[in-house]
């Protein structure tokens, strides 16, 4: 299972690299990285949002979707294979679903605003940005809950502690490496 996981991580990295190349080779637009504010020095403006996403929008959406999956896979890699039970995988799938949902709301909320000009606010920010700010922050909280509340079940169990103590007793070198 560990070999499959590292293979998946490798495949994700390759895909991310390929998407990056595709984006770099896409037709560039004048405001892709922003342009200087016409009146205020030191400020940058984005300009036409639809134009900026015209050639790369779907690549960027896929990039982030795969990156979120990579984050989940990396967290799974940090859990010993013997603790990766079906409920654990189910929980991680749920974490990914939540992160993907938040990303979806953010991206397509932005799209909707660009098309309609209609906008609502949430806690001081335009709703798509609220998804970005609050959603991205809180989207990883389930991972933190698993780590903290599930520490003795998934991360470092009593059996792990005993095994490490035994290892220290057996092998500890009196000098540094």
């Amino acid at each position, binding site marked *: 299972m560990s070999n499959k996981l*590292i293979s998946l991580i490798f495949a994700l990295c390759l895909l991310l690299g390929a998407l990056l190349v595709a984006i770099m080779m896409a037709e560039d637009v004048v405001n892709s990285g922003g342009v200087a504010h016409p009146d205020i020095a030191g*400020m940058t403006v984005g300009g036409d*949002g639809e134009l900026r996403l015209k050639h*790369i929008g779907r690549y960027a959406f896929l990039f982030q979707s795969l990156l979120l999956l990579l984050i989940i896979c990396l967290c799974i*890699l940090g859990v010993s294979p013997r603790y990766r039970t079906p409920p654990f995988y189910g929980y991680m799938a749920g974490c990914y679903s939540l992160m993907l949902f938040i990303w979806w709301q953010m991206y397509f909320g932005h799209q909707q605003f660009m098309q309609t000009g209609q906008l609502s606010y949430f806690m001081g920010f335009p709703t798509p940005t609220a998804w970005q700010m609050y959603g991205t922050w809180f989207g990883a909280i389930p991972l933190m809950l698993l*780590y903290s509340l599930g520490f003795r079940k998934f991360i470092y169990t009593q059996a792990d502690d005993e095994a490490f103590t035994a290892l220290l007793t057996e092998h500890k070198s009196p000098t540094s490496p």
Partner: protein
Amino acid sequence: MEAYRQEIILGAVFLYMAFCIVTGIWAMRRTKNSSDFFMAGRSLGPIVVSLALFSSTLSGFGFVGGPGLVYSIGVSSFWMVVISSSGYAIGFFLVAKRIRMIAELRDCISLPDIVAARYNSEAVRFLMAVTIVLGVMGYLATQILAMAVVMQAILSGTQMFAEISLVSCVVISSAVLIFYCVTGGIIASVYTDVVQGSIMVVAGGLILITATAVFDGGMQEATSIILANDSEAIMPFGSAGIMASLGWFFVFGLGLAGQPHLITKMMMNKEMADNRTIFPMSLFGYVMAALLWISIGVVMRAAAIDGVIDPLQSPDDAASVFLSLFANPLLAGVVFAGLFAAIMSTSDAFLNIGTAAIIHDIPKAINGKSVDNELFWARVVTVLLAAVAASFALYSYYLDATLVALLGAFGWATFAASIFPVVAIGLNWKGATVPGAIAAIISALVINFSVQLAGISIPYGISGGLVAFITSLILFIGVSAVTKKPNIGADIEQLLDI
């Protein structure tokens, strides 16, 4: 109270510096050997580690550069901050447990020690140490310069020190930094981090309240002003665009687990089980402190657009102008002290790991053993390293910014690309090999250096750091898959199964 604003600010900063000196003296009594100097004897409690961890993450950049970026490019820079929850998750899941275990098993006092043990390779140790030294020089020089510039700005507002020079400010601020680093090592560093972290948590909350009061309609009015002027700036990807934003998400998120000054702190906690509380406490602290970054930047951009303030001469003035115009003098004093604390906290962390790399890791990689009388030489090299970095800082400021800019490229992104695969993945995958690790580190250094030296501009705001990071990940796993696994010790083999 308003009439004494500068004096209050100066007093708060002076108080903090005095605290640093006292802490250095106190910590000196607890520092008996190089393990204490570099690792605090692996005896720190969860609150200390939590505060040290997040306060080392947010340097002066969190106070100055961050708000300045929001002023300049809007929501794009939020991506550097909101990734923190995922970044901490990756760091704790992948690094915290195994790095702590290897550190105790093999009496490691540095990150190169860890990788030498994991890969049974002095070549990997050497490359890791060189990467750290190069990165430390760049980071330290910019931090020392930032410290001196802020000190000069504060002192020049008073009558007595109106004409103080930048060189004098470098000398004064570096002297305090060197004193407590030399006397107390990492113990002084982490306990000053405790105060700094506490200041940042409190300041973050108070600044948010202050910022939302600048406009009658609160934060929504501020963001509406920005929206009316340029919608993209306040939309999820900001002025810099989607790929700049997602690139920062990648580099700052995964890269957190590749920052040497952060993950070495994961080696210092007394009990393994403390990690379950360190993670949420660190994250909470970071989120609170980051409120300062976001709220000041948004309000200042809106204020400049709306004509409430004159446009800033430099985006980096956002925080200082905000504090002088909108914040209560006491709050301004606390935040300026926090700014100093943040810069010093990051500087002392880098001084410590840079010194370890020079006197412990590089000699071990070349000669097979560290220098004799490690504690003495640790103190000497700490002074020399700070002096060299301060000289670089002044050289770049007065003569030629190229060298520091080049070394400054060895910032977060280079550490991320060169260290993350080797440590974060390597500690959790038995298939990682020495050629894979070497390929990852060298590719990260070459790509970041090349992009900086050649001034390469990549379309759609894609950063060289992102390209380097993805490349190093692919090379690390790909090269490892086709090369022979190292003969690691039986103890490490068993540890990787736990």
